[in-house]
């Protein structure tokens, strides 16, 4: 493990590192004024001074090492580290049909009212920020699916993608192709991470039987947890409502989509939300359900270590300069007096 760690360190100018033996110089000599002394054995022993001498020696070594290393330009190479956190791969499939721009009451928003798109934007945005290691993909669909953002852990980008979903929507609701693209967002080899497909829509549409087969195959392969957040407009038919007349997919697309999902044999829950609070509650529930370990990749950029090396060197140099400033001369105080006394002696003689 350790050699692998070391192998990530490098230098811009490795040949400068040949100067590193210079760091041993402070062990040999110190640039301090030396006071000649008659008998060192008579100096009282002082552990503190000895420790200080060792410290200054170490500071000298540190300063030289830091300077040489700093000049060599050390860095730690960038890398991708796979770690395990709590989270899930979430592929969001968001309805961009025109009706999403209406309120839950089925009107154009006015004043303080919030459209369905705005409410889901707000609440999904909070969801994205709440856990660090979730991976998100965002797909929108109306007549055709739109790939907004592939699977990523850059939550800022995800939030930006979600912010964009309350732009005025387009026409129809083509949920089949949207589901196919959202399934395609899951990567191939994500191991045992839990996968969540979150469908946010305010209506449903008939899925072509041929497309249904394709979807079944894809679901069987990927096996995501499927959540359908159904933003129900007041008065419109719910998921469980049987139509009064003939029970065909055309007459009750929501009910039949639900039935289709149930027939997929993947974990599936549908949330019928009739207001922003209900949406928030549903999201909280999803959040609490998806708590599995997930491997995620942390990208560590290449880091320049020269600043740190110079920092160490500066620390050592500051210690040395302080020591230099603290130096005193033994006989300095008397030197002037000695010079003053000399003529007097001559006169006396």
């Amino acid at each position, binding site marked *: 493990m350790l050699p692998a760690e070391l192998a990530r360190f490098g230098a811009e100018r490795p040949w400068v590192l040949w100067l590193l033996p210079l760091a041993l110089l402070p062990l040999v000599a110190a640039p301090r004024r030396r006071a*000649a*002394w*008659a*008998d*060192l054995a*008579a100096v009282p022993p002082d552990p503190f001074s000895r420790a*200080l001498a060792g410290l200054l020696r170490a500071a000298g070594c540190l300063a030289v090492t830091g300077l040489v290393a700093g000049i060599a330009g050390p860095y730690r190479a960038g890398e991708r580290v796979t770690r395990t956190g709590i989270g899930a791969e979430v592929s969001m499939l968001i309805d961009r049909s025109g009706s999403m721009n209406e309120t839950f009451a089925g009107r154009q928003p006015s004043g303080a009212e919030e459209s369905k798109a705005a409410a889901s934007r707000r609440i999904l945005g909070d969801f994205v920020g709440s856990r660090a290691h979730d991976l998100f993909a965002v797909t929108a669909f109306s007549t055709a699916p739109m790939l907004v953002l592939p699977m990523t852990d850059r939550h800022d980008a995800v939030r930006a993608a979600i912010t964009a979903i309350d732009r005025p929507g387009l026409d129809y609701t083509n949920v089949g192709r949207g589901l196919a693209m959202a399934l395609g967002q899951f990567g191939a080899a994500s191991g045992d991470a839990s996968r969540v497909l979150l469908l946010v829509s305010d209506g449903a549409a008939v899925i072509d039987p041929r497309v249904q087969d394709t979807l079944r195959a894809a679901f069987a392969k990927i096996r995501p947890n499927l959540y359908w957040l159904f933003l129900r407009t007041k008065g419109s038919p719910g998921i469980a409502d049987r139509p009064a007349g003939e029970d065909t997919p055309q007459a009750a697309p929501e009910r039949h989509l639900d039935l289709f999902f149930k027939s997929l044999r993947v974990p599936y829950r549908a949330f019928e939300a009739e207001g922003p609070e209900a949406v928030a509650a549903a999201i909280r529930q999803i959040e609490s359900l998806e708590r599995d370990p997930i491997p995620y990749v942390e990208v560590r950029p290449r880091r320049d270590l020269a600043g740190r090396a110079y920092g160490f060197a500066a620390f050592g140099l500051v210690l040395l300069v302080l020591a230099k400033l603290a*130096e005193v001369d033994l*006989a300095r105080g008397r030197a002037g007096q000695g010079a003053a006394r000399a003529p007097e002696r001559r006169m006396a003689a």
Partner: protein
Amino acid sequence: MSEEPRTGADILYLPRWRARGNRLGAHRGRDAGGPGTFKDQVPFLREPDARRLDLRATLRDPFEGTYVRRFEARKAVEVWALIDLSASMRFRGTADRMALAGALCASLAASATRIGDGFGLIACDAAIREELFLPPTRSRAGAALAARRLAGAVPAGASAAGLVAAASRIAGRPKLVFLVSDYRWPAALIERVFAGLAFHDVVPVVLADPAEAEALPEWGLVELEDLEGAGTRLVLMRPALRRRWIAAEQERLAHLARLARRHGRAPFRLAERFDPAALSRHLLGA
């Protein structure tokens, strides 16, 4: 150094023993004869010197013997300076140790030769430095020259063990020996040197320097380098350490003083500058 070093005052010294020998000088001798101080009375037959008849003693004697006064002879002594030339003598604090030693020797040479005493000089490091050796001489010029040579000498030795050899070289009649050193020796060597000089009247002259104790700075960082090659040492001066340091130095000097007194005389502390009058007071026991 071309100028004749003139010392302000002579060093006055009193030997602690009665000198013998046949060389007349300035000190009280053991033998009778000459114009010295009164010594005793002896019968005329023992000292038939009619000029010194002691009439009072002669009249007082009930057996009517005749008495003669005797007087002490004035004798010359030999004054020796034994100089330690180990490298620690190169220490230069407020004063240069070798300059102090040189001034002392010059003054001693002048003082001794002026009253007819012989002056000899032995300088030693690990062995006797023969080029500085001066056999006892009464020649004033010769003694002064040797003292000057000494002042220019460079102490380099790692020890002062040659002083033991010097002690055996001056064995014989008692002499007045000035043992000039900073006494930064192992305790065993001090004992041996004092023991080797036990027969003589030894005046220990301790070269000290305020920079070694009292003048130490309160605060600061000092790197000390041993003159005798025992390496270097970084010392952070602070008041507590300075107190300990001065106490240790005083303890060393006190121990040396005890030892020196046991062998005769208290040591004379020579620091900062040489004052012959102070040495005279010390030697006369004031």
